[in-house]
């Protein structure tokens, strides 16, 4: 079911993205909006296949992330893609969403009953807004694809970590998000119109949908990490490391621009180098999450695994996705 959901999300997003790019071949704005729409439908398809569509009205943090935060952020990115509003208002809208994101995600929970200092919420909002605004702006002018790729990886790692910490549904939801983002980006890179690179007047620069998709990935990552940290058992250090990955993918590019010599610029701007740098925190997070799973929940999974062939599927230390298959086989056995 998980693999089907990820592939389904990716296929729907890629197909719709390709159709959108094909229809709007000479109109970058339209293609950019189409890329965001493709991502949205990819996510919907993936969640449907995963049987994890949010409940309406939203009652949990995960519901509010999927029903409120992500759609509002995507609407803003669609506005940006269609050039409907000026840069100032775009920045202001992103700032408002960043400021309200944490209170919306934590609404009605114990976190907003005096447990969370306002300064923490403000710091999270500032971090979210700065990375969203800064990275998206940079991608729009540079056409850099590395951040979007790293964000897909970070989403997968966030999902695995949340699931291995004990919140299976919260973790699994990350996978269709990553699948849809990857699918929409594939379609985007396969062809379609491009934005002019700022200042150069060059045509054939940034793929039209890339800034919007990068923003969508960053918002999805932030929302998922916040709900995973506050409602699941994702640790603070793991949450910070996951959020750091996209920044590490873009930081060398910024430092490289400050260097006078072109060799240093080339090295720091190298996609391979930046991906490797961003992978470091993600690999650390996965290793720690797996070790934590083995010592705590792995034993529990071992305890609850039913006898018979399914027991071999779920041994102590097995990954949580095997647990879901075992549950299916157990319930099938129970029905028979």
């Amino acid at each position, binding site marked *: 079911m998980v693999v089907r959901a990820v592939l389904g999300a990716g296929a729907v997003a890629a197909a719709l993205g390709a159709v959108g790019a094909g229809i709007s071949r000479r109109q970058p704005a339209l293609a950019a909006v189409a890329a965001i729409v493709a991502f949205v439908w990819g996510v919907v398809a993936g969640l449907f296949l995963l049987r994890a569509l949010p409940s309406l009205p939203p009652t949990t943090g995960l519901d509010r992330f999927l029903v409120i935060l992500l759609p509002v952020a995507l609407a803003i990115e669609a506005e940006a893609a269609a050039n409907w509003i000026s840069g100032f208002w775009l920045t202001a809208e992103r700032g408002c969403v960043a400021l309200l994101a944490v209170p919306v995600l934590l609404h009605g929970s114990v976190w907003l009953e005096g447990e969370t200092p306002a300064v923490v919420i403000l710091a999270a909002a500032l971090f979210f807004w700065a990375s969203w605004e800064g990275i998206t702006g940079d991608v729009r002018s540079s056409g850099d694809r590395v951040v979007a790729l790293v964000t897909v990886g970070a989403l997968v790692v966030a999902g695995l970590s949340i699931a291995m910490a004990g*919140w299976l*549904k919260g973790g699994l939801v990350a996978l269709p998000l990553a699948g849809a983002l990857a699918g929409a980006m594939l379609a985007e890179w396969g062809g379609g119109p491009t934005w002019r690179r700022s200042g150069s007047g060059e045509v054939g620069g940034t793929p039209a949908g890339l800034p919007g998709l990068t923003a969508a990935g960053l918002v999805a990552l932030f929302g998922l990490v916040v709900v995973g940290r506050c409602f699941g058992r994702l640790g603070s250090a793991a949450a910070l490391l996951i959020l750091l990955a996209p920044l590490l993918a873009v930081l060398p590019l910024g430092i490289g621009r400050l260097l006078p010599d072109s060799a240093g610029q080339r090295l720091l701007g190298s996609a391979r180098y930046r991906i490797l740098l961003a992978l470091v925190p993600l690999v650390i997070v996965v290793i720690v999450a797996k070790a934590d799973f083995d010592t705590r929940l792995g034993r529990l999974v071992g305890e609850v695994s039913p006898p018979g062939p399914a027991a071999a599927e779920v041994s102590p230390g097995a990954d949580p996705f095997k647990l879901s298959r075992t*549950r299916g086989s157990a319930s099938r056995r129970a029905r028979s």
Partner: protein
Amino acid sequence: MPRFPALLAIVFALAAGSLHAADDYDYDLVHSSVGFKARFLDISWIQGRFNDVSGKFSLDRKDPSKSTFSLTIKADSVDTANAARDEHLRQPDYFDTKQFPTIEFRSTAVKAIPEGYEVAGTFTMHGVTKPVTLTLVGGKEIEAMGKKRVGFGTELKLKRSDFNFDKGQIGNIGDEAIIVIDCAGQRD
């Protein structure tokens, strides 16, 4: 004219008298328990309890319909004698205790029955409120350890799926859960 204040005083005295007809009890955490059990693979039961419970009940023995019962359970205090499982149960796949920190019962109608009281009320868990009717067995007051004490026992069967629990987590652990409440109340 002076008759009116006197009449008023009598009315207040009667009203006060009727209020005092009800005995107010505090939940005695030391001598009470709220436990639960659910089927494991449909072959055995997994049992647990909630360690942090509070409540009040007011018993009007002359007019039981005026009695009230309330119980508040801290979902975070779930205890199944396995720390890893307890952590798992607190997460959103199960109780989602950061979002829904309490499980509550509030009575709406009470009537006396031979075994004790039949109490209709609302049961709120995981953000969902459903009407339930509890048969509280007991209710006899005794005096012990310097306090007046009364006790009740009841069982409540419910389906986790009715309370919006994640359907993906209903499989190995059965949908139906039985909540067993044995509570003692005390007053001076």
